[in-house]
């Protein structure tokens, strides 16, 4: 079956104060239709740039993105909009404050054109109901809505064209936990009902574990580990994944604050270390990590970019 999203050898850098910042530095991935790929990582790891490349909002430096088997480059904007839609983090800045909710949600339909006003209105109202907003919300302005309601509007706008794929970039990070739970439940319901595929970007591992079927962990522009969600959380293989997981503070007063053992060094995408890019912070680094880049190492059905995961010569690991 054609993957919903396929990314081949994607690179993208930016110029910042005269320096090249390698935001996405060789990413390949494939996401089957109906799955949810959670992309996790800390700020500056390139996860949002990856999302923008996949949505075609940013041209890649090199490499290519295929959505539903077709190359994104050169695809008509309206066609792309029917295929893949975004939901962004901040429902305060991603909605036009001067437009009524019905116009915000209807905009993707209007941009497609050739739809009678009446039909457009019906589709908007249907979608508002689907995301749990009452019909009187249609006449309001974003400023009259709560954060959770605004994020429902953003979801309705993303779904009104019935795309196959939705790219959610930190969709609950600006929300309170009680509202976050409402939105996560809504996204899970919509995926089931509409057969959607999600690319779900988040810094919150617990949220990703809840919604994803597959998880990619990014560090300084690369996916350093990718595995099905259960496997990744049961047995994280990359030292960075382990540190990330150890950092999650579960509400358990019997546990102290974990020692993640990462030192005070901080990842800088303008200055990516040679060898393994994680080695300056890695508690398990050894001499070769400073020189040899672990590239595309696969083990037990998962991607792990770590020299410790290299099977010994002659095999012995399955």
């Amino acid at each position: 079956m054609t993957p919903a999203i396929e990314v081949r050898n994607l690179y993208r850098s930016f110029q910042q104060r005269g320096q090249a910042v390698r935001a996405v530095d060789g990413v390949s991935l494939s996401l089957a239709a109906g799955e949810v790929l959670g992309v996790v990582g800390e700020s500056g790891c390139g996860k949002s740039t990856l999302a923008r490349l996949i949505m075609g909002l940013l041209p890649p430096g090199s490499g290519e993105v295929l959505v539903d088997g077709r190359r994104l480059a050169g695809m008509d904007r309206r066609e792309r909009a029917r295929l893949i839609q975004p939901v962004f983090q901040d429902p305060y800045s991603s909605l036009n404050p001067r437009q009524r909710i019905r116009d915000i949600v209807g905009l993707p339909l209007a941009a497609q054109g050739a739809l009678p006003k009446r039909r457009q209105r019906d589709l908007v109202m249907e979608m508002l109901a689907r995301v749990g907003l009452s019909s009187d919300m249609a006449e309001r302005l974003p400023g009259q809505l709560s954060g959770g309601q605004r994020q429902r509007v953003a979801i309705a706008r993303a779904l009104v064209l019935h795309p196959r794929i939705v790219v959610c970039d930190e969709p609950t990070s600006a929300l309170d936990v009680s509202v976050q739970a409402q939105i996560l439940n809504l996204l899970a319901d919509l995926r089931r009902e509409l057969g959607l595929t999600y690319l779900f970007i988040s810094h919150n591992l617990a949220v990703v574990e809840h919604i994803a079927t597959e998880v990619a962990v990014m560090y300084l522009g690369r996916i350093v580990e990718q595995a099905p969600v259960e496997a990744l959380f049961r047995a994280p293989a990359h030292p960075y994944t382990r540190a990330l997981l150890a950092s999650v503070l579960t509400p358990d007063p019997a546990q102290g604050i974990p020692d993640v053992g990462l030192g005070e060094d901080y990842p800088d995408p303008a200055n990516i270390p040679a060898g393994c890019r994680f080695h300056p912070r890695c508690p398990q680094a050894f001499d070769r990590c400073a020189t040899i880049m672990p590239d595309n190492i696969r083990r037990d059905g998962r991607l792990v970019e770590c020299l410790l995961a290299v099977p010994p010569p002659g095999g012995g690991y399955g």
Partner: protein
Amino acid sequence: MSDTILSIGDLRVKFGDRTEAVRGLSLSVARGETHCIVGESGCGKSVTSLAVMGLLARGAIRSADHIRFRDQDLLGLPERAMARLRGDKIAMIFQEPMTSLNPAYTIGSQMAEVFERHRGAGRRAALDRAAELLERVGISGPGMRLGQYPHQLSGGLRQRVMIAMALMCDPELLIADEPTTALDVTVQAQILRLLQKLQRELGLAMLLITHDLGVVARMAQRVSVMYAGQVVESAPVSDLFAAPTHPYTRGLLACIPVPGTVRRGDPLGSIPGVVPRIPPGFVGCGFRDRCAWALPECARAVPLRQASAGHTYLCRLMPDEVRP
């Protein structure tokens, strides 16, 4: 109790006639204790910390039975005396270190200024003190850092600098308002570990304000859960998580996805509706519009009940009526 460093009694904060942000809050923090105030945005937790520091925005009206720091009532204190306490015996750390640090001055000169102003020290002695504290918060090469500007440091390093600056004058009370919310998770763990270590070594009383129940569980000895301007539940940390009693606390705990406990396809718990705006003169339970147990009588004054020793909550229900 002689060990009590901060004691707040019946604090109220109004913003004109529209909103009462804090409605009769009482709590205390002892030497060496971390007391967490936890709640969602708009619950009044940050307003509480600003009210204690005397830093409320113009137009806010503060009243209380008392706000006592050691033996001194801060309520009637003139601004000049309050300013002498701030940054000296009472120190603060805020969420966003980039906005709390002045971008135009070096780390060294900002840190030194605190010591010069409060202790009358010379620049040389103040810089020595700053270097000592940078080292203490785990910053290597403190001499080099003193000459740097805030934008040259990462978010994690900036927050370490803020902590070092807060400790310049040996405070007895540290008020930390969402100190790790803007940081990445791995850095958050490092900063919280540091705060906990320093607090133990220095015997600080810490009032830690956060929205994150994970932070609460790992940092607090005592917890006050705030909702709509009130402490709706207060307990020692182990009691709060073992036997949460107020319907809001229970709802909030159910909302948190916890790694390792996920069952695929199960929805998370959630609390319907949104946080209400509470006008002055509001009577009854502020949570009643979102509460599954609400009855008409919840619109009347709500009793403060005791769930166990030192564990109180604000609700008409008895403990065994809420817990399954």
